[in-house]
């Protein structure tokens, strides 16, 4: 358990210096151009073949994207998502072997406001990306993050998934597609000129206020990710896309897995890091780059001149200890240097996990977290970390003596009675929630464990976008309604368990 070699010598082995043989390990003819892992040496041609094959194999194996489907590629300008864009381009190429058959579009979210970029800086980046997207030849959408302030409530409600598309029907769908569309040329889509929506300065300020209201960088990053995700899903929905492709690579996912564990997102791990994520119902998130390491992608982009655009993010130029995300990233990266199998081992762990209670897809849609939209993980048994923390908090505070705790300025007290399952507690919860203020509902009971932590790190929730606040109020109202009529309800769930 303690030392370097112990029981897992092959897994934790230190890096040997790569034995670079002169010839490509695959074709044994051309000279080596790239060394991926110590043993794998490739010449230029073989590397490209390997890279391209992996992309199509990942999509082919999972059979999630049906022919003719509209797929939105989320491109941030970074190496990973640009490589993804490049692979889709290659795959749609007329003479591509195992041609891809979906209809891609591109989305770029300009989050310049979160890192306090000037309007000019933002415009420059946008025009750089516009050039890349135009060259790709797909329809593209460029959205400033400020748009998130104008989203409708429906964004945080999972839509029912359309008629189940099963993997078994995949083959039939492909055959049908090939026959029907033989004459139709897919790649020649019209590239709509989408104008970048105009950003009001007041919007920028409001968003900056929101991001600024998070006290820690950890919470700030979490919040920004959530907002971005909401915006992506909204755009996919409103433009008629049914799949959303993210460029997360293996290294990133390993970091994300450890970060998620550290942030208490164990229950959501499989959705956060798996190949596909169906938490939004109608829009399925897909991660086709998850089998590539960051190194592989960097080598590919370099060798085949895949254009990338460097965009600063929240944690650019921050020290390692600035946030949980930064710390985990530097931890994994440093460990990877000494133990080269670190990333792949962590990543393989993610493949063996599954979301708790995922099997029941029909889980009450209201039982989802308001922010991350995952199934709630706070209804746990008495002996659990969540309960233990609450007990600790209670014991460290002055005991509320009946008359005292109705004061409106007791956020923890109101949180307690709302999250408490007992009817008694909820009765008084109604009182304090509504008296607190109409503007800032108590979100705690509507959030999963991890999102509660994020909100706890915020000075106030009043800067959250309107769609979140109004949906929260709607859910709280509904919750209260159900409390009122609870004695007449025969079933626990509000859809009922009958056939």
């Amino acid at each position, binding site marked *: *358990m*303690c*030392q*370097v*070699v*112990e*029981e*897992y*010598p*092959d*897994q*934790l082995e230190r890096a040997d210096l790569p034995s670079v043989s002169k010839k490509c390990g695959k074709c044994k003819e051309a000279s080596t151009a790239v060394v991926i892992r110590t043993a794998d040496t490739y010449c230029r041609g073989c590397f490209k073949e390997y890279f391209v094959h992996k992309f199509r194999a990942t999509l082919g194996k999972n059979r999630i994207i049906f022919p003719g489907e509209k797929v939105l590629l989320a491109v941030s300008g970074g190496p990973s998502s640009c490589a993804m864009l490049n692979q889709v381009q290659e795959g749609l190429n007329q003479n591509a072997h195992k041609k891809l058959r979906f209809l891609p579009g591109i989305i770029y979210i300009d989050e310049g406001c979160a890192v306090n970029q000037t309007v000019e800086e933002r415009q420059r980046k946008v025009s750089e990306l516009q050039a890349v997207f135009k060259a790709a030849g797909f329809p593209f959408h460029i959205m400033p993050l400020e748009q998130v302030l104008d989203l409708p409530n429906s964004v945080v409600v999972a839509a029912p998934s359309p008629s189940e598309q099963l993997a078994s029907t995949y083959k039939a769908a492909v055959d049908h597609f090939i026959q029907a569309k033989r004459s139709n040329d897919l790649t020649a889509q019209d590239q709509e000129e989408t104008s970048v929506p105009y950003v009001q300065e007041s919007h920028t300020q409001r968003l900056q206020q929101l991001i600024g209201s998070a006290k*820690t960088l*950890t919470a700030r990053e979490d919040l920004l990710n959530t907002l971005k995700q909401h915006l992506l899903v909204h755009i996919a929905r409103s433009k008629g896309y049914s799949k959303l492709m993210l460029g997360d690579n293996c290294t990133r996912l390993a970091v994300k897995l*450890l970060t*998620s*564990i*550290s*942030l*208490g*997102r*164990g*229950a959501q*791990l499989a959705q956060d890091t798996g190949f596909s994520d169906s938490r939004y119902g109608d829009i399925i998130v897909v991660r086709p780059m998850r089998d590539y390491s960051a190194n592989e992608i960097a080598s590919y982009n370099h060798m085949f001149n895949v254009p990338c655009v460097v965009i600063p993010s929240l944690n650019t130029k921050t020290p390692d*200890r*600035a946030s*949980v995300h930064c*710390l*985990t990233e530097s*931890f994994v990266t440093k*460990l990877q240097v000494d133990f080269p199998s*670190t990333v792949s*081992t*962590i990543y393989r*762990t993610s*493949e*063996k*996990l*599954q*979301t*708790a209670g*995922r099997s029941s897809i029909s889980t009450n849609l209201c039982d989802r977290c308001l922010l991350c939209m995952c199934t709630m*993980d706070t209804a*746990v048994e*008495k*002996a659990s*970390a*969540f*309960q*233990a*923390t609450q*007990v*600790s908090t209670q*014991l*460290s*505070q002055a*005991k509320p003596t009946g008359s005292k705790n109705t004061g409106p300025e007791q956020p923890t007290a109101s949180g307690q009675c709302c999250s408490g399952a007992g009817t008694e507690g909820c009765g008084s919860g109604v009182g304090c929630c509504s008296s607190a203020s109409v503007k800032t509902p108590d979100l705690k009971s509507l959030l999963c*464990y*991890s999102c509660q*932590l994020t909100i706890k790190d915020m000075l106030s929730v009043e800067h959250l976008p309107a769609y979140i606040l109004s949906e929260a109020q709607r859910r709280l109202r509904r919750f209260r309604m159900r409390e009122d009529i609870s004695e007449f309800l025969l079933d626990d769930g509000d859809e009922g368990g009958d056939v």
Partner: protein
Amino acid sequence: MPVLCSACTEKRAVLKRPKTGHSLCKECFFWAFEEEVHYTIVAAQLFKPGETVAIAASGGKDSTVLAHVMKLLNERYSYGLKLMLLSVDEGITGYRDDSLETVKRNQEQYELPLKIVSYEELYGWTMDAIVKQVGLKNNCTFCGVFRRQALDRGAIILKVDKICTGHNADDVAETVLMNVLRGDVARLRRCTAISTASEGEGVVPRCKPLKYSYEKEIVLYAYFKKLDYFSTECIYSPNAYRGYARTFLKDLESIRPSSIMDIIHSGENLCVREGVKMPVQGTCKRCGYISSQALCKSCVLLEGLNRGLPKLGIGKHHRLHDKILSQQPLTEKEERKLKSVDF
């Protein structure tokens, strides 16, 4: 201006709780710490009245605090438990002999019966002798595997119903991280359980009453209670790989103090996909102890020591299990591989 205790709002606070960030006075901190352990014991239904419980005592801070709190709660809430101390003497000069002195003092202070089982009497090998043969590199494997069984054997000699160990929240969180880093899903799933179910013959159920107690709070508790404990790192433990996980955890805690509980929460809510191969629990064909292989790890390690092939139990040599069982000699090639000790 002095900070007032946030619980009693009267006395001056003397510490800031690492777990929640509240400022507390000494008495309120003691009360909160003890009540939390009590809550854990009751909520997880760790004990039944009338049971005999062995406290695994090493003399370190965790087990000293555990012994103290268990005795206190047993009286305060009349659990009706018969408590005793159980120690393992690994035979490490300059480390275990000193810490055992602490345990002996604890025995007098808490008036609890004490049983010491030693590696020497159980296996015929002290850790000092093992290190002499194995070197400093893999010795923790021997120590860890042997201790697990030694505790069970000691518990059977004492005829106790349960063993409780001093694992704290930091230990559990660290183990979750370690198992992720090693990709060990089987252990990842088990490691957050607060108690092990009765696994069969020769295995006594174990539990961790301090599972939700922060290491820092345990030290604070011991410090303010002026408890007598032994704090020295084992002289043979270089702690290389686990050290990375530990440093990472401490860094996480400094960024967000709740991280430790957050990681445990994650661990408790992990779900392993169906169809992932899991080791099947069986029994060792030689000693009858639980094992997922034909031979249990400690029998293999012991065989390796006795044959002068210390690497037999390091790494995976399942194919050799049949040979060991039937007492066949190993081939020269196999021997050469297992003999090499690199320093």
